[in-house]
């Protein structure tokens, strides 16, 4: 169980997150939707203890950060480090000592090549494989489907289901609503740093309609083309 109470975050005079209150349970998948700059990544960084914040984040773990697997939108890779060595590094950091990465290479990644030369999708898959092998309890996935081929997207959806069955907590952000509506138990709409809507499965289609209406009807006509 993860409880966020009155979470706020500011950069100078700009308030990015405003009084967020959320609960996350084990064995559930939560989606976060919102426009670019709505505060999704900042919220994730606060949860991962990368950013300082006001308010509280409590969990069953003494040190929540050590149980979090964070998949960034654009994962960073060090130069001259192979895929195999990257996996070794992230596993070692979490005191997980494994070497048979080739056997577990479900995405067919060229692990003996330098990760910096991977395509966008391959980088994302490698980073995802890293946090899975770390055996985390809370997964924060910022745009996990972006840039990834269709076969791997299917595999990622299956991975999410397996993580759910293992009683892990998963938070996903995505700009493709259908990927969230097919996997998530709850979806939160974040707008200007505020949770505007909390939707359960039965409310997903209503939420999608609201989003479409807001974007298409209210925005499209502004641009003359």
């Amino acid at each position: 169980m993860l409880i966020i109470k009155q979470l706020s975050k500011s950069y100078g005079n700009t308030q990015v997150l405003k009084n967020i209150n959320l609960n996350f349970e084990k064995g559930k998948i939560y989606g976060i939707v919102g426009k670019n700059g709505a505060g999704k990544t900042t919220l994730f960084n606060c949860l991962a203890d990368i950013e300082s914040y006001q308010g509280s984040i409590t969990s069953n773990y003494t040190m929540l950060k050590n149980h979090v697997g964070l998949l960034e939108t654009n994962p960073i890779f060090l130069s001259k480090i192979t895929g195999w060595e990257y996996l070794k590094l992230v596993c070692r950091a979490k005191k997980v000592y494994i070497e048979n990465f080739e056997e577990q290479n479900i995405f067919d990644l060229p692990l003996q090549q330098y990760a910096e030369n991977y395509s966008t999708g391959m980088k994302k898959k490698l980073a995802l494989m890293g946090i899975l092998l770390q055996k985390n309890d809370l997964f924060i996935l910022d745009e996990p489907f972006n840039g990834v081929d269709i076969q791997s997207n299917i595999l990622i959806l299956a991975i999410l289901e397996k993580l759910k069955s293992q009683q892990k907590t998963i938070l996903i952000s995505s700009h493709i609503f259908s990927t969230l509506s097919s996997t998530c138990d709850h979806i939160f709409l974040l707008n200007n740093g505020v949770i505007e809507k909390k939707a359960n499965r039965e409310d997903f289609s209503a939420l999608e309609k609201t989003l479409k209406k807001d974007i298409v009807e209210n925005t499209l006509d502004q641009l003359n083309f």
Partner: protein
Amino acid sequence: MSYYLFLQFTRLKRWFKDLGIYPVLGFLICIIGFVLISSLLFIKTEWAKWIFSLFAFSLLIKCSSKTHNKRLKKLFNTQDRRTIRLIENIALMMPFVVFLIYKQHWTIAGGLILSAIIMAFSSSHLTWNKYIPTPFKRRPFELIMGFRQVFLLFILLYFVSFKAIQVDNYNLGIVTLAALFFVSMSFYAKPEPSYFVWIYSCKPAAFIKAKLVDALIGGAVIAGPVLIAMLIFFPANYLISIVVFFIGMLFLLSMIFAKYSAYPNPINLPQGILYAISLWFPPMLIIIIPLFYKQSKRKLDTIL
């Protein structure tokens, strides 16, 4: 094109500013440092002109990287791209060429200029993208990255140490041993992205300890063979060899403390000065190491 070059110069000035140095002062320090280190090299060894020119050439290769060429290709037409590459290469080689002319090594200086011109007009990319095996596979990442970035320099240094033994030149051998540590220290000079610190599930003290253990193993693997060869072939100087090895290890470890004492920023001017003083007067390490350790723990505590 001129705006591109102006931006490169602006970036360099900003780099100095980020280090807390006035750009003019920064340029001055670089020039003085370059002259001092080069002079010292030419005093210490007869192989200096080769070490010097190889270092210059390695910079030229770095400047001809695939990424850099690709970026220029996207921005400029062929003519402008070649002009930029030529200006960059000549500017990069100029300090080395001037110093070599001052030392009256005309042929090598001419060779460097020629290389700079040829590489500016060459359309092929001088990058080594092939997998290079390292002895540090299980200990990512600084040692692996560093080893792969400078492996040609390592080959050269091992060759020089072999020649030192062959020609019975102890001083050259000991300079090579020190150089191996100096190169290894550079692996730890640049701070890594904070994600690669954040992923560790341990306290700052344990994190630093793990980094120190890796560096000790790395230092032993890199410089150990040269030390053993020196002990075997120059047994009379065994004490000096061991002391140089020990001090080299201490500097390698202190570099880790220095890096994390400023983390996530690069090592700043006051820390750099303290470190430079300790290079000149090694007993200063007794004060510097605990100071940097305390600062490192404080800096890492915010991330770990």
